[in-house]
């Protein structure tokens, strides 16, 4: 990491879909080792920010820098290689595969892929497979997914699938983890677990978390800093308490 460069920063990021301005000069930066949350009403542009970081579509203007590396102009699969992992709002798991296979795919950037050697399952391939299997087991332990290892994802309940989605992102060994609405669709207990896990991810695994979230109690509980957006613009940023009491934020949510 170049000295002086922020861990992750977004500078005047904008995105237009035709005539619709989804993001208007959004800027913020995330410090290493913190949990940074983006809040805002529906349609405010939060997931758009994530999709721009993941390079699912190109930004209209602005820059995204991760450890000094400029993200824009790269191809989507390089994002994982750089150390950014992500979960999706609507769960994009590999439905016809088992949990274990989903997690092993998460290891993709860390294993060399040599189809010809793999066809013969050479000792080198075998060794790397064992390594991956061990690494994945650590994540399974971390998130208590042992019971679901060999289950096919399609048959699992929603709450479990959300955890598998998180596990898969962790298997990519990211330095920055993008969580898109981690508690959506979860009940009270599952949200509790998620809160503990998010904190453990920061404290035990040393991963920086950038989160989009609606559940305000979860936000105040785990976040170090919060950014509020509305209509594609930043309306407030600071600690959770500061942001939640900010008049513009209150107005946005209560619709004055």
């Amino acid at each position: 990491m170049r000295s002086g460069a922020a861990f992750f920063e977004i500078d005047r990021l904008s995105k237009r879909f035709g005539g619709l301005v989804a993001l208007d000069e959004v800027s913020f930066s995330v410090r290493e080792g913190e949990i940074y949350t983006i809040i805002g009403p529906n349609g405010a542009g939060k997931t758009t920010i994530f999709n721009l970081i993941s390079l699912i579509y190109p930004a209209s203007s602005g820059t995204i820098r991760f450890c000094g590396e400029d993200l824009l102009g790269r191809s989507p699969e390089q994002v994982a290689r750089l150390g950014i992992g992500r979960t999706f709002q609507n769960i994009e798991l590999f439905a016809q595969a088992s949990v274990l296979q989903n997690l092993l795919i998460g290891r993709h950037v860390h294993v060399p892929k040599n189809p010809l050697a793999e066809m013969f399952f050479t000792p080198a391939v075998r060794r790397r497979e064992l390594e991956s299997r061990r690494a994945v087991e650590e994540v399974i332990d971390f998130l208590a997914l042992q019971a679901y290892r060999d289950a096919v994802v399609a048959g699992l309940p929603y709450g479990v699938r959300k955890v598998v989605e998180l596990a898969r992102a962790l298997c990519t060994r990211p330095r920055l983890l993008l969580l898109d609405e981690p508690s959506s669709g979860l009940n009270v207990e599952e949200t509790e677990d998620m809160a503990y896990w998010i904190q453990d991810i920061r404290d035990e695994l040393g991963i920086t978390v950038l989160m989009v979230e609606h559940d305000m109690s979860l936000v105040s509980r785990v976040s170090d800093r919060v950014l509020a957006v509305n209509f594609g613009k930043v309306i407030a940023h600071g600690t959770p308490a500061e942001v939640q009491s900010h008049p513009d934020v209150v107005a946005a949510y209560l619709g004055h």
Partner: protein
Amino acid sequence: MIDAAQLLISGAAIGCIYALIALGFVLIYKATEVVNFAQGDVMMLAAFVAFSFASLLDLGFWASLPLAILVMAVFGAAFDRVLLRPIIGMPTFSAVMITLAAGFAMRGIASMIPGWGTDTHSFKAPWSDEVIRMGPVIVSTDHLAILAVTALLCVGLYLFFKGTRVGMAMQAASQNQLAAYYMGIPVRSINTLIWAIAASVAALAAVLLAPITFVHNNMGFIGIKAFPAAVVGGFGSIPGAIVGGLIIGWVEAFAGFYLPEGFKDVAAYVVVLLVLVIRPSGIFGQMRRKKV
């Protein structure tokens, strides 16, 4: 110059056949997202049915035409009701495989029906085998009939979709099924109706085409060229199906005349590959990206 004019007309005529078949499966695709790979074979069945009414039962052309359309409409509706309703909710791949398999079965069954078989049968319209002179250009009446009927059909369908309640309901159902349900539109019945309409359009195409190509078991293969037509025009667009069909018809006609032998047969496929590489959404279509 005169050659070019001739080619324009004959190309447009065959293009209209492609357009009519493409229209059939674009209608179905818009409503149900199912691609009916058997549309050409539906046309083949329609031709045989019309032939049976006209020659085997000796009812003549003008009686066979509406009868054939009616029979095929019922067939289309039955196809949807019996084969496709059970798999609602399954991935569209399953529906595609069903239509592919149905095409096989239809060809097989048609070849085994006595009186049909694998022979070639003649089916002529009252205006067939004549020519009309328009200045230096000679136009066959069969081609003219195709152009005229296609034009009329387009106008008719346009009025139907914009003017009648059923047509509006179909548009609604094809744009947002869930919302259509909430509005009280019986979406599944609408889909069956769309299949009936698509089969009727295929029947019309059959009656127009049969005088030129004769009625035989492999007649449906012409329907495969309708796919390039639909893609070029923009899959999911009804005007696109017509325009795409015309374009493919013209490309084939001119390729057959000016290029060496063999290019005519692959012209449509080369064109569609080019379109898919350069602009997959075709002329009128719009490709959407999956929202995550």
